[in-house]
Structures are given as C-alpha cells and as structure tokens.
C-alpha cells in the first residue's frame, strides 16, 4: 500500500514528463522530412532488431550544430535570459513592499488582501494580457491619462516594445513573488525587531539587519518562481512585444508552426530545458535549506 502511494508521483512523472521528454529528444535528433509527422527516421517495430539498429544509426546531433551556426538562436536565448532576469528584478521591486504591507496589516485584513492578490487568476491569463494592449497602446488609457494631465504632449510608444514585455511579465507573475515573501514575513517573530531596536537599531536599521535577511528564503523562492516560467514565456512577448523583441519562446513557436521544422524546434526546446535545469536545482536547494532551518 505504502509502495503504491510512493509510486503514484513516479508514475505520474514517467508518463507526463519522462516519456514526452524522450519523444522530444528523439525528434530533436531526427531530420526534417516532408511527411506526416514531418521528420525521419520513424521507429517501425515490425522490422525487428535490424530495423532498430538502422533507426538508431540515423539519429544525429545535426540540429544542435545548426543552432550554433545561426546566431539568431543564441541571441534569443541571451535576450530571454536578460528579459526574464530584469522582469524578475522588477517583480521583486514591486512584490516585496506589497508582501511587507500585507504581513504588517492588521490580522483580520490579511485574508482579504491575500484574496485580492490571487483574484486576477480568476480571469483568463490571455484576457488580462489583452487588457494591457488597451492600456499601453498609443490611444490607450495610459497615454490618454498622461496627455490629460499634461505630462506629455504626444503619445509615447510603449506597446510593442520591450518595456511592454517587462510590464506584462511583472504584472502577470507578481503573485508568485508576493506569496512566498509574504509567507516568510508573516512568520517573522516581532520580538526580533524589538530586540534589534533594544540593541540600538532604528526602525530602518532593524529592517535591514533583521527583516531583509530573514525574508531571504522567500525572496529566493519568489525569484525562481518568476524567472523560470518567464524565461520560456511566449504569449506576453508575442502580444505586447515588438517585432524586434527576441525571446526563445517566440522562436520556438515559429520553428514549430511557421517553419514546421519539428526537429530544430525540439532541439531549441531541449536546450531551453537544460538552461532551466540549473535554476531549478538551485531552487530545490533553497527549499531544502529552508526546510532544514525550520526544524
């Protein structure tokens, strides 16, 4: 019985992660072909051992070499890393004060505030991104507002620039930053701040000496939770970004659906996954350290 329970997550992972991963990996080692599905070789088990050996011999790393040839790809990876990192930073900048305010709000207010943070999830993600088009476009609410108060004399172009992408990612992933930080700040023992003040700190010094270091695990968790999905983000750059906004998610989409080059697209996906493995491992470590410190 116990074994069965333990087996469930493994079976789940096997079926929904490892098997698809194997298939994508295999496609990435195949060659483009005008067929359905659009790649070759295809494994035909009826030919037996002989057929398998032949199939195996036709797999190669050609697509990966191709990725290094065309500088579009590594530029896209780099630019994705940059956009994800900067957005994560902006999310932290906005998210920390929100989490701090929530944790210091009167107890009876906190569930309501928490609800407000999660509330946007009740609307479709796509609709929320579309809403930003209405806000950021040249005739959008933001420009109209700035024109009305006389801060600018002509509309500024925000939509279809990288700035719009930063805004979109920061907005969309904010709850993932706020919630883990809030969780650590809420647990913070108020008497620690009193002790810091007692030992000569001002409120602000106590904040830097006690609150900030103790909220570190939450900050790290939040950063990874934003950075990891933001790196492969596709919808936000395609809807809000410009034609020159380079993100690997967009490249992937184009390889798959415009070029129909499944093998190259798969290779792009595999590299993206490898890049993500590093932050995911670091994230796991952080979680584990936090759990150990908690005991």
């Amino acid at each position, binding site marked *: 019985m116990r074994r069965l329970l333990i087996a469930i997550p493994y079976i789940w992972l096997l079926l929904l992660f490892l098997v698809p991963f194997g298939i994508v990996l295999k496609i990435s080692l195949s060659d483009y072909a005008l067929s359905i599905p659009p790649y070759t070789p295809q494994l035909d088990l009826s030919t037996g051992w002989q057929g398998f050996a032949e199939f195996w011999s036709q797999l190669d790393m050609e697509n990966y070499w191709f990725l290094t040839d065309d500088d579009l790809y590594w530029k896209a990876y780099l630019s994705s890393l940059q956009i994800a990192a900067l957005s994560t930073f902006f999310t932290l900048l906005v998210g920390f004060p929100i989490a701090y305010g929530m944790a210091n709000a009167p107890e009876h207010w906190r569930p309501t505030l928490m609800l407000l943070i999660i509330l946007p999830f009740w609307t479709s993600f796509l609709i929320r991104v579309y809403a930003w088009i209405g806000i950021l476009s040249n005739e959008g609410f933001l420009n109209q507002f700035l024109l009305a108060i006389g801060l600018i004399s002509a509309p500024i172009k925000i939509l279809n620039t990288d700035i719009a992408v930063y805004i979109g990612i920061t907005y969309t992933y904010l709850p993932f930053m706020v919630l883990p930080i809030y969780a650590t700040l809420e647990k913070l*023992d108020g*008497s*620690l701040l*009193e*002790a*810091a*003040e*007692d*030992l*000569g*700190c*001002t409120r602000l*010094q106590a904040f830097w*000496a*006690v609150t900030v*270091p*103790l909220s*570190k695990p939450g900050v790290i968790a939040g950063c990874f939770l934003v950075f990891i999905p933001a790196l492969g983000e596709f919808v936000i750059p395609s809807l809000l970004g410009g034609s020159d906004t380079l993100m690997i998610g967009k490249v992937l989409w184009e390889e798959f659906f415009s070029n129909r080059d499944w093998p190259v697209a798969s290779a792009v996906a595999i590299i993206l996954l490898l890049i993500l493995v590093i932050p995911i491992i670091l994230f796991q470590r952080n979680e584990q350290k936090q759990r150990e*410190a908690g*005991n």
Partner: protein
Amino acid sequence: MSSATVEFSPWTDPDTTPLISFEGVTKRFGNFTAIDNINLNIYPREFFALLGPSGCGKTTLMRMLGGFEEATEGTITIDGQDMAGIPANKRAVNMMFQSYALFPHLTVADNIAFGLHRSPMPKSEIQGRVDEMLRLVQLQKFAKRKPHQISGGQRQRVALARALAKAPKLLLLDEPLGALDKKLRQETQFELMDIQETTGTTFVIVTHDQEEAMTVASRIAVMDNGLLKQVDTPDRIYETPNSVYVADFIGDVNIVTGTATTVDGDATQLTWAEGVAPIKGMTGAQVTQGEPASFVIRPEKVSINKSEPEASNKVQGQVLDIAYLGNMSTYHVELPNGQIIKSQTANNRRIARRDITWEDTVWLSWTETAGIVLRD
C-alpha cells in the same frame, strides 16, 4: 559573599534620587487593565525583583521600561528624564526577552556583537568584549553555532550575554534563568550579582522562582492583577508580609482564620476556635479589633514535640502526613477542629531514628513573635 559593611538601602533615604520612577502608571490593552495605577521608585545599583503569578503584568511593566509599550496614564522617568515618546533604541536600557528573541540568521557570537556594532565601541574592541561575554556564560565552544543548533538553556545564556554586552545603565531581565538546571542557575545568579557589583548596573528581574528572588534581590515587588501588593526587602517580605496574599505567595505558610479579639500595640490575639486559647501573634498592617483576620506562620517556626512544651502558643494534634525533603521534613498535623498545621524541622538525625511518626499525638508550639495577624 558580599560584605554588608555599609547597609545598602537607598529607598529609606529621602535624599536619594531614584533611577526609575513610576508615577500613577496605568496600562490598558483595550479595556483590560494590565497595570493598575502603580507608584514605584527603583534606585541606582538596585537588584529589583518582580514576583507574581502568570499574567499579573510583570512583562508589561518591563516592556514599558524598555520602550515597547506606552503607559496609558501616568509618567515613567528614567534618570530624571520623562520616557514618554522615547523609542527603545534611544534608551540606555537593555532587555533580555522572555522568548530570548535571538536572531536566527546570526551565529551566537554575532548575536552578542549585534548591539556593540551599533554602539560607539571601536571595532577593534568588539571581538574582545564578545569573547568576554562568551566566557561569562560558558559558551566559548558554541560561538560559531546558530541559535537553532544549541539547547534551550544555552539559548537563554546567549540572550543574557547579548543583553549584558553593552553594559547598560539599566538591565531588564525577563525570567533570565528559567531554563537552566539548578547548579548552573545558582552559578549564574552569583555571576549576575557579581556583574551588578562590579558594573553598578541596575537590574530589574522577573522571576517565578522565589528562592532566586530571595537570593539576588535587594528588594522584591509582589504583584497581583496589575497591582503592587508589597514592595520590600526579601527578609521583610518573608517575615512581615502585609497581606495574606503576599504571605501565601512567598514560601510555605500556615493560615488560621478567626477574629482579632484584642489588639494591643504589637501584640494581637486571634480567636479561631471554640474552647481553645486564642493565638498570640504580632500585629500586622491594618488589623482592627473585632474584625475578621488571619494568623500566618511559616512552618519552620512551628516546633513539634511529643510532650507538652513550655510555650505561649501551643496546640495538640495528630500527625497526618510526613513529607521527607532530604534535609528537612514537613509534618502535617491535624488539630481537633480539622485545621491542618505544617511544621518543618531539620533532619539532623537519620530517618530510622526519627521519634515522631504517623498518627502520633503531638504538640505544636511557637513564640508570640513567630507569626503575624493580618487583615483578611
């Protein structure tokens, strides 16, 4: 021990200015009164102990001194300065928190150094001071550990060292020794008294342990429900409590209720049962003739004998129970009217040679000044 060549009793000298003074201080949380109109002076170099049951307001009183709670009414002055509106970091006061409040992300040594880094002390001297503190609380070996890697008693000592490190003018200790074993506790008590004598720091200490209060304190305040019931030296609190509450709270006590029949200066007689002689005792605070009163006497002041002794107070009863405490034994004696009186004697004989045993008929006796008659 410290020699008492010059009696230390600034509270009896009207010319001494107190270090701390509470004037009509009340603290309310909502409509709950935690501190009820307290007037109290604490003098420089005192070792002042707060004693009282859980929830009586000891921590609240400390927190008002530390700057973590504002008085609802009244004024608190420290060193002649009105403390209203002065934040904790601007007060020459350090507090050891009841929950220790150690910084979990810092090592033991860094916890102790925390306050020093925010003081005028030059950087080069900080390490030396930290080492000194570590030695004091015997934690040199644990300097590099984090608070969650040491035991509860060790954590308590870190908290103590951290509060002591800045050598403040006033040190507030909220149950500083509760988690220590008896030996370490006594050592630390003497250590505290030593520190107090060498540095001249004034200590206010909260404790649940009366013995501790008796050992270390120059004066003790007994609190109940936000009120100060009695503020006095340990011996006077013990010998001449001003109320049955204080007598009952400090140490073991026999209480006999009755009526104060004759009050004659220092001597009062209490009629407590029919057909027996009234008890003669000292006159306590506010006892009036003809009013109900209680006679209180410590068990160690009641002698126990098999034959009738010569004494001004004596009663006969039967041994109900004997509690053997090693160095002492407490005899529970039931009087004919059902009243139980405890008598405590030193065990200077081996247990087997004890001549009083269960169900023996015995005489209890005490002198006229051994007990005190208090108003109910």
